[in-house]
């Protein structure tokens, strides 16, 4: 689709260069650790070496003698103010600091306040904590067994380790449909615990101004407004009321979901600042970040799918155990304890489906948040895309053919899924066929057959995913009761330039650029003349923040709606200036002109000036608007990915030879940025497929607590991604856009896993759990007698 605006205006569809880059390429960004306030003190945290232990004693004497250490904060100190516990976003509870026992390794035990970060670390080393170890529960299946130690003894009536049971769909009908199917395949699929590991860790500066009674917290948060409200709810009883709390989210060095939760460190820093009346800086190091911050995934899924002999899918059933660790500290909408997992029927016209899931407590850090994915969608997509390939293998059908046979057809949209979603739009056949053409699918299958004869291991994997993003409609979506709308406020200055503020917060997505393009699209004001601000709760309108690919579907839509309100008023002013009636005006990007007399026109800049200098009688001066956009439905981006891998017979190493990604995110605001997001998303899809896992031993010790063992992809493992697109606009979004930041992370893992299994399928391999490390493959090759 050709852009509606000129390159000078730079509305939707233009790959304009990013407005945030000039500062970032000069090293002049303002990330949390770059902020320094007068009199600022530093905080460091004492953490538990045990996964489960009674705290016998905390001796702080030696720490307090370290020159420069000004204080130690323990759970007992916070308990005096009833601040030693806090709610999670899922209405569970977790400790800020313990008074009795620790529940996971690296849990916060005490905090040191000192004059600088080195002295604070000295103080941490000098704190002597006496622990009495307790039995550790790491396996969620064992945690559910009768007689397992009950972990949450703080909850009076808790008799077991189950957090919640959730289900969706028709159990009886699904059971029957599976029974009546010609073929049923079943597979246990585990998606391990992983960590977003944004290159910037988490941190904050809490600054309580005693004279004004105002708390300002600069913090690495993806959702500053929600955080302000949470702080007001948690600390209201000690006098922190919401108008006296200001959250500022500065430049954020990557979020991916890990910067949504409230971590104990933030709360302790706030408490310390209130107690001492000084700004307190807390910046976690990478080990703390990997070992204590919220994780993602950790879903043990049993997936079953039924089909007729000809490959027509009949029913899907998935039973899942979700390991949440010590607390359910996920960041899902409140009514969705398993997030949007019920998107698991995927891109297929599956009329019968049933899913059930149990959330379980263990002695691991609390969670789980997303990892660059809308709520639990990656888990759902992995289950359906993997089990589809298992079915293809069983039926001896080509996996592409099986998919094309079962896809929801374009004419079926809006499509009502068996698990209750209304898919807004889609054209799955076109996307898969495009990917197959781009990669020469038929040619690859031929090559594979020839290679197999020679004993070479080559595999081709497909993933045709459907995403579900843009939470969400207020009817169903809230977090702690706050509806999941989002907002925009646009002010046009007298000289025709603008400032636009949003309730979201970019962490690299490029909102300063794309939101300016939305304003440019709707008002014709060049994007370069639109300043975008986010992240300061004192100035930006209230919104729920940036995660789950929701910025464009919600705040972006709010931007369009606010701009349209401004255009309506601009029309009245133009009519006044041109002395015609509104009906006689026509709009083209940037100006109103008189029908039939195009030489009689007023630009948006003329109109803006008049709004402050010559506004019509009976109309308020000024030109600005606010919109709180409550989306009527979610959006459903989709795509088809095809991956080709070669496997080394000797080492088991998997090399991605090619990866073609055809994405459809509806109408595109900035193609350059969308491409970049897909590149990054694919890399964060490859990461858990091949490399990343937060692993523990039986004693609860984290085995991957630094970048020595937790392997992020480097430029060497990462292939040269090949991207393309189809465009199926969302029918309900004002710009026809859908959101794209996470599609690739969601879609990529099964394409890679399917390719590896495909390479080994002739050996009788049907499934391998991710991450597919060389060791796992080598063991299979050894077992099958392929390698020595």
């Amino acid at each position, binding site marked *: 689709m050709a852009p509606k605006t000129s390159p000078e205006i730079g509305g939707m569809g233009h790959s304009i*260069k990013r407005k945030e880059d000039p500062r*970032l390429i*000069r090293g002049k960004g303002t990330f949390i650790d*770059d902020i320094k306030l007068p009199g600022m003190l530093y905080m460091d945290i004492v953490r538990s070496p045990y996964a489960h232990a009674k705290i016998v004693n905390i001796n702080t004497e030696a720490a307090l003698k370290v020159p420069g250490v000004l204080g130690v904060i323990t759970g007992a100190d916070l308990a005096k103010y009833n601040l030693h516990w806090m709610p999670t976003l899922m209405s569970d509870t977790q400790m800020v600091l313990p008074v009795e026992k620790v529940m996971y390794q690296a849990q916060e035990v005490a905090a040191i306040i000192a004059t600088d970060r080195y002295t604070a670390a000295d103080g941490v080393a000098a704190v002597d904590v006496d622990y009495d170890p307790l039995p550790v529960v790491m396996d969620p299946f064992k945690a559910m067994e009768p007689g397992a130690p009950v972990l949450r003894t703080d909850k009076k009536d808790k008799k077991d380790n189950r957090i919640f049971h959730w289900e969706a769909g028709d159990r009886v009908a699904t059971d029957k449909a599976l029974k009546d199917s010609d073929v049923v395949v079943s597979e246990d699929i585990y998606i391990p615990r992983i960590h977003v590991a944004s*290159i910037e860790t988490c941190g904050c500066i809490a600054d309580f101004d005693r004279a004004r009674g105002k708390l300002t917290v600069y913090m690495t948060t993806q959702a500053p407004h929600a955080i302000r409200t949470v702080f007001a709810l948690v600390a209201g009883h000690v006098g922190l009321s919401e108008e006296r709390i200001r959250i500022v989210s500065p430049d954020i060095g*990557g979020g991916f979901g890990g910067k949504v939760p409230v971590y104990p460190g933030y709360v302790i820093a706030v408490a310390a600042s209130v107690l001492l009346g000084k700004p307190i800086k807390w910046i976690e190091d990478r080990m703390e970040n990997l070992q204590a911050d919220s994780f993602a995934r950790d879903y043990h899924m049993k997936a079953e799918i039924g089909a007729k002999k000809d490959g027509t899918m009949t029913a899907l059933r998935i039973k899942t155990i979700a390991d949440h660790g010590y607390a359910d500290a996920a960041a899902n909408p409140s009514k969705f304890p398993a997030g949007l997992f019920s998107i698991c029927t995927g891109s297929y016209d599956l009329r019968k489906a049933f899913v059930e899931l149990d959330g379980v407590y263990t002695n691991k850090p609390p969670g789980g948040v997303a990892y660059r994915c809308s709520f639990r969608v990656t888990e759902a997509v992995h289950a359906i895309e993997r089990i589809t390939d298992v079915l293809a293998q069983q039926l001896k059908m080509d996996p592409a053919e099986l998919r094309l046979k079962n896809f929801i057809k374009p004419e079926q949209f809006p499509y009502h899924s068996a698990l209750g979603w209304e898919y807004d739009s889609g054209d799955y056949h076109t996307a898969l066929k495009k990917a197959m053409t781009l990669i020469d699918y038929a040619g690859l299958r031929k090559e594979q057959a020839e290679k197999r004869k020679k004993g070479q291991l080559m595999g081709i994997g497909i993933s045709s995913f459907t995403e579900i993003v843009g939470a969400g409609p207020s009817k169903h979506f809230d977090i702690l009761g706050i509806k999941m709308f989002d907002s925009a406020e646009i002010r046009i200055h007298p000289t025709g330039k603008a400032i636009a503020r949003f309730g979201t917060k970019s962490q690299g997505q490029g909102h300063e650029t794309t939101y300016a393009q939305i304003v440019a699209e709707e008002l014709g004001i060049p994007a370069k003349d639109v300043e975008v601000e986010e992240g300061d709760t004192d100035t930006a309108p209230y919104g729920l923040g940036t995660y789950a690919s929701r910025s464009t579907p919600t705040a972006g839509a709010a931007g369009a709606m606010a701009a349209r309100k401004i255009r309506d008023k601009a029309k009245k002013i133009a009519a006044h200036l041109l002395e015609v009636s509104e009906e006689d005006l026509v709009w083209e990007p940037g100006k109103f002109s008189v029908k039939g007399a195009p030489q009689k026109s007023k630009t948006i800049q003329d109109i803006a000036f008049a709004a402050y200098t010559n506004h019509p009688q009976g109309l308020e001066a000024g030109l600005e608007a606010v919109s709180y956009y409550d989306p009527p439905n979610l959006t459903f981006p989709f795509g088809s990915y095809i991956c080709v891998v070669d496997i080394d017979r000797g080492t088991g190493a998997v090399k991605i030879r090619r990866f073609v990604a055809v994405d459809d995110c509806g109408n595109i605001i900035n193609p*350059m940025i969308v491409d970049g997001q897909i590149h990054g998303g694919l890399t964060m899809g490859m990461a858990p497929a091949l490399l990343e896992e937060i692993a523990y031993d039986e004693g609860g010790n984290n085995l991957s607590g630094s970048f020595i063992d937790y392997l992020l992809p*480097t430029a*060497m493992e990462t292939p040269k*991604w090949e991207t393309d697109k189809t465009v199926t606009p969302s029918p309900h979004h004002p710009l026809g856009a859908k959101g794209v930041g996470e599609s690739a992370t969601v879609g990529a893992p099964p394409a890679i896993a399917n390719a590896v299994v495909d390479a080994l399928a002739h050996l009788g391999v049907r499934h391998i759990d991710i991450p597919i490390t060389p060791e796992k493959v080598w063991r299979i090759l050894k077992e099958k007698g392929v390698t020595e």
Partner: protein
Amino acid sequence: MATHQIRVTVNGTEHKAEVESRLLLVHLIREVLGLTGTHIGCDTTHCGACTVLLDGEPIKSCTMLAVQADGRQLMTVEGLERDGKLDPIQEGFFQEHGLQCGFCTPGMMMTGYALLRRKPKPSELEIREAISGNLCRCTGYVNIVKAVQFAAERR
């Protein structure tokens, strides 16, 4: 804690500082000299966000002591732009969309800058090898490679 007088030249300007033996070079740069463009991402020499040039060679300043830089030349991201003109490596990252959140970018650019001084026309594989000690979570490296190639063309 013992302290030491050191002299370092940073981006062409000589600085004197009294530092503790244990002060990390990255903290000298960021906190003593106030050059916050150099970032800290992992503390274990893996992510490369803290990459600066020491006597022209890229090093990870999070695992080097400030005293080890005594008498030597440092270059940080703030030294790339000269006389109001961006270095080609900066121009490359801007034009080719080589950054998203921008946190790894300074280290990534310093590595790229050093590569191009050593090897003005590197192959794609040589670029990927050179930046393999710098982690990026946002871009998938595709456009970072292009950014370095852009700079190689312009130099």
